[in-house]
């Protein structure tokens, strides 16, 4: 994706673990990071805790990001989303262990309406994938399952699932790039 002005300087400072770069990166991508967490956790408090923990974790681990990683925005999105998925799995485990307790109430907060063009782009791109790749990708992305769980559910070897997810994700990314008219910046 194209780098906006200042993105490279920010990424370089972030890689050097400069404090101001962490603050500026959060300010710049706050909505995207919050949305990434919220769309996994569906709870505002959990999403905020998740982002705070992800930022704190990055602070403690100097060297987590380097220039060869590429886009800082993508790196942060994945950090936050992985943190959110871990929390969701942990919550699910807690629910399983506490069978006698009522399940957590489902939050019915109305999501803001997303751009229908964006929604259609993802849907179309997903539908264009071979069915096996689409199924594996949907189980990983939308249901937050691990590759082991997906392999067990689909009764396929782990290697097959890894390969389907890898190729499916790459095709989906390329389709979204091309429909958005952007070019990958991997320099």
């Amino acid at each position: 994706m194209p780098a906006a002005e200042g993105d490279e300087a920010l990424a370089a400072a972030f890689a050097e673990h400069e404090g101001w770069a962490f603050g500026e990166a959060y300010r710049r991508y706050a909505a995207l990071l919050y949305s990434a967490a919220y769309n996994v956790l569906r709870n505002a408090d959990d999403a905020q805790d998740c982002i705070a923990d992800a930022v704190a974790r990055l602070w403690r681990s100097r060297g987590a990001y380097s220039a060869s990683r590429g886009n800082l925005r993508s790196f942060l999105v994945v950090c936050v989303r992985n943190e959110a998925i871990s929390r969701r799995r942990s919550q699910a485990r807690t629910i399983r262990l506490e069978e006698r307790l009522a399940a957590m109430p489902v939050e019915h907060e109305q999501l803001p309406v997303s751009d229908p063009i964006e929604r259609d782009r993802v849907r179309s791109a997903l539908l264009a994938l071979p069915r096996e790749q689409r199924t594996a990708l949907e189980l990983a992305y939308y249901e937050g399952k691990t590759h082991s769980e997906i392999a067990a559910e689909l009764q396929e070897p782990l290697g097959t699932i890894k390969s389907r997810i890898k190729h499916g994700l790459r095709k989906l990314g390329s389709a979204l790039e091309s429909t958005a008219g952007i070019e990958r910046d991997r320099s």
Partner: protein
Amino acid sequence: MYEHVEDRAALYALGALADDERAAIDAHLRDCSACTEAVGAAEDDVALIVSSEPQRLAPPALDARIGRLLQPRSLETMRRSRRPAWPSATAIAAALLLGLLPSAYFWSENRMLHGAMLAQSNAIGRLASAPHRTAHFRLAKSSPPAEVMYALDGSWYVVVVRDASKSFSVAWMHDGVQTMLGETVPNGGVAMLYLPKSHRMDRLALMDGDRVVAEATLSWQSTVPNRRSARSG
């Protein structure tokens, strides 16, 4: 050293690995630039999907929380927690406190200044090189003069509040809802908020706490922008 990432780059980026597998890859990435690039490419793909999902603005409370987290004192606390216990901690802490206070103050100021400068340089770059329009905030009695300059396609906005020594919040007013966009950063009597990536918004509000102090109506008619505002890059 952990084995190369290979097919697991996509799994990592999608969050489809168990926590211990992910931690092992994190450790490996610190020493392997080839795998780091592969993971970075997969992260770009996932970020594209995430960007296509419904977006929410981060609550102001989270902004404040992250701000506190990144304060020098918080950082010092985090680093201390990883160090072995220090002898004569009380006396040395007192001495350190006296010695570090000025440094912490200047560090904090410097950090804020860097952030403000970066945002301002981006904003000024946009204003100097790209056609844009200007809308003035309709002022309440006690509010400072303010305006918003914005790209013709709504892809970026710069809100400038003059004679401002404090921050104001900027909100998008739509469908009877206030969506917080961020806070202006005061610097040298001018407070500024640069929104680099956005979409078309018709009405913005300047807020002092929960109170709306001024509103601006933005025009999206496809007329030629005024000569003063429109400069070709």
